[in-house]
């Protein structure tokens, strides 16, 4: 299977009986940052969900290999433990569960799965507080229930905090820039950039070029009508920003799922 971290071949995916991805090919190596851009309804979020194993998405054709292993039979939690992280476009509220508590459960579930020793409450707290400081997340926010009553910017920063704590090998960030003002965008963008390492790959899904000023991609792909129609370097994002997706035909029917 070569040494690629992620190898997607001819991927076809349906949800609720409607085909959304129609033959996606993508290779991502360790250390690389790939941006996936495209118009609404092109299948960007679907791709992120399929990588993370969300129920309700059927792979009708093609394959996904992650670090040489067929990813498709694995449940979401196994993929997470193996290093796949999804930054949600709309982070979900979990009332009554403090952010710190949630992170402790998540981190230790992954560590347990990998056969590593679980961290005690103090160990988790130190780790989380260190990373939270970098993202300007207050101790008070860590006590509040996950995403509950958070502003848009707080939610996105909290996603990046989770990524920093969980230390994934492949991070898929779905429209991490949506709903952010200029300052929040810089904070989040710099937070993500700080997590770039030679053994970590990222797939950054975005509608707009502006996030890519902060997270500079090695490759840019355009997803349109369920297929990657163009690939290039950084300059492709700038071109799309100037000229829009006019050349990329939107699908006749926009699938219901975001």
């Amino acid at each position, binding site marked *: 299977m070569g040494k690629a971290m992620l190898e997607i071949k001819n991927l076809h995916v349906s949800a609720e009986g409607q085909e959304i991805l129609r033959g996606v090919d993508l290779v991502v190596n360790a250390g690389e940052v790939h941006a996936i851009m495209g118009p609404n309804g092109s299948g960007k979020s679907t791709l992120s969900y399929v990588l*993370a194993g969300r129920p*309700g998405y059927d792979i009708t054709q093609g394959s996904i290999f992650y670090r040489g292993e067929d990813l498709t039979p694995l449940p979401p939690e196994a993929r*997470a433990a193996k290093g796949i992280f999804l930054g*949600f476009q709309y982070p*979900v509220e979990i009332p*009554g569960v403090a952010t710190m508590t949630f992170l402790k459960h998540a981190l230790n*579930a992954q560590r347990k799965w990998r056969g590593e020793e679980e961290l005690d409450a103090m160990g988790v707290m130190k780790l989380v507080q260190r990373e939270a400081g970098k993202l300007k997340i207050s101790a008070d926010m860590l006590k509040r229930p996950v995403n509950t009553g958070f502003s848009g910017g707080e939610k996105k920063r909290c996603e990046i905090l989770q990524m920093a704590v969980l230390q994934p090998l492949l991070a898929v960030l779905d429209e991490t820039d949506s709903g952010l003002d200029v300052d929040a965008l810089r904070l989040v963008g710099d937070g993500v950039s700080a997590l770039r390492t030679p053994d970590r790959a990222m797939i950054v899904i975005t509608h707009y070029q502006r996030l890519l000023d902060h997270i500079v991609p090695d490759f840019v792909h355009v997803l349109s009508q369920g297929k990657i129609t163009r690939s290039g370097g950084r300059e492709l994002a700038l071109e799309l920003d100037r000229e829009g997706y006019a050349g990329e035909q939107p699908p006749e029917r926009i699938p219901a799922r975001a």
Partner: protein
Amino acid sequence: MSARPETITAVEAAGETYKHGFVTEIDSEFAPKGLSEDIVRFISAKKGEPEWMLDWRLRAYRRWLTMQEPAWAKVDFPQIDYQDSYYYAAPKGFGTRPKSLEEVDPELLRTYEKLGIPLSERMLLAGVAVDAVFDSVSVVTTFKEKLHEAGVIFCSISEAVQDHPDMVKKYLGSVVPYADNFHATLNSAVFSDGTFVYIPPGVRCPMELSTYFRINAANTGQFERTLIIADKGSYVSYLEGCTAPMRDENQLHAAVVELVALDDAEIKYSTVQNWYPGDKEGRGGIYNFVTKRGLCRGRNSKISWTQVETGSAITWKYPSCILQGDNSVGEFYSIAITNNHQQADTGTKMIHIGRNTTSRIVAKGISAGASQSTYRGLVSIHPRAEGARNHTQCDSLLIGDKCGAHTVPYIEVRNPSAQVEHEATTSKLSEEQMFYCRQRGLDAESAVALLVNGFCREVLQHLPMEFAVEAQKLVGVSLEGSVG
């Protein structure tokens, strides 16, 4: 099916030492089935009760004969044959009890392991070893000596009848009269044992009182009676842990709990109920038909009920507060979890009689599998209850699409100055929340446990620390298998 002779001797010896220990359990083996005046007399005689106690039981029994089993709860069960039960007997004969852990249902043992209950306690809970029973007696005794210094009386109700008859006469049935309702009346006639607590004026009980260690007694006594009196300015926190399993056919458990708080006194009563809920097909399990009521008799008194109900095939109970004293406060914090074929009809009654009385109700119902959960609550403001206030919040969470949640509030206001608020929500455990948790590494069952614990947080906060930890684990265990 009787116990081995050496066991009987051993237990009788212990019975001598601890007076009203566990010797009755063995004797009970010989009590005939069914209910009659003779059985009531038999029970009373076995306990060596004074005449007034027997009279009280007999009055209750005769009243019970004239009563009909109520049918208003939203629960379904086959007709109970009251003549087909033992009223002074171990539900399962001593001889047929498991003698070692090997004979205990492995699934049961796994549950205990998950609960983190140590082996000796697991044996105790499974009703395995006689020495374990002895252990628990000695624990209770240690408690008693320490409490004695503070002037607190903490003993079995049978002992209280002997040693503190004036108090028992004064308060027994003062909150739940013997003619109160079908199951409470039955309990009054045949109650086997239970707990008596008295906190003298101005005393803050130095420790949490718990029935946890007396679980074996509860194992046989399906009709316990608890009476707690907090005298002026005193405080007590009482924990009732029903983690004993019962693996029999459907069994009736009809307990009565009475609380009395005098001026400036406070009683905090916490329950974690995990009786055997029946199997996945709904066979077996306990019918938990319990009457719990507290009387805030004095000014500025306070009674707070916190319950976590995860077990029983059917739960039918309404821990209530009668707010008689001016400025008295009643609280009810409840979590009711039903899975598989369990049914729960539970809630509270807040009866506002005194001036400026306040009550607060927070009820969280979680239904999974094919279960049904109903919140039924009464808030009643009497004409004299000037300035009474109530706030009620009922939240229901559904897991899956075969279960049901129902909210039945009754509100009666007879004083125009009263403020009564009721909020209710019903939601489903969302696929989005589940996926979010799983993406972060939690498996489906851990995700459910975490989400449900979050949903219940407001109530769990009101439990004493050690109980809260147990309850959190129980929440997860109770909902196992509820997601695919």
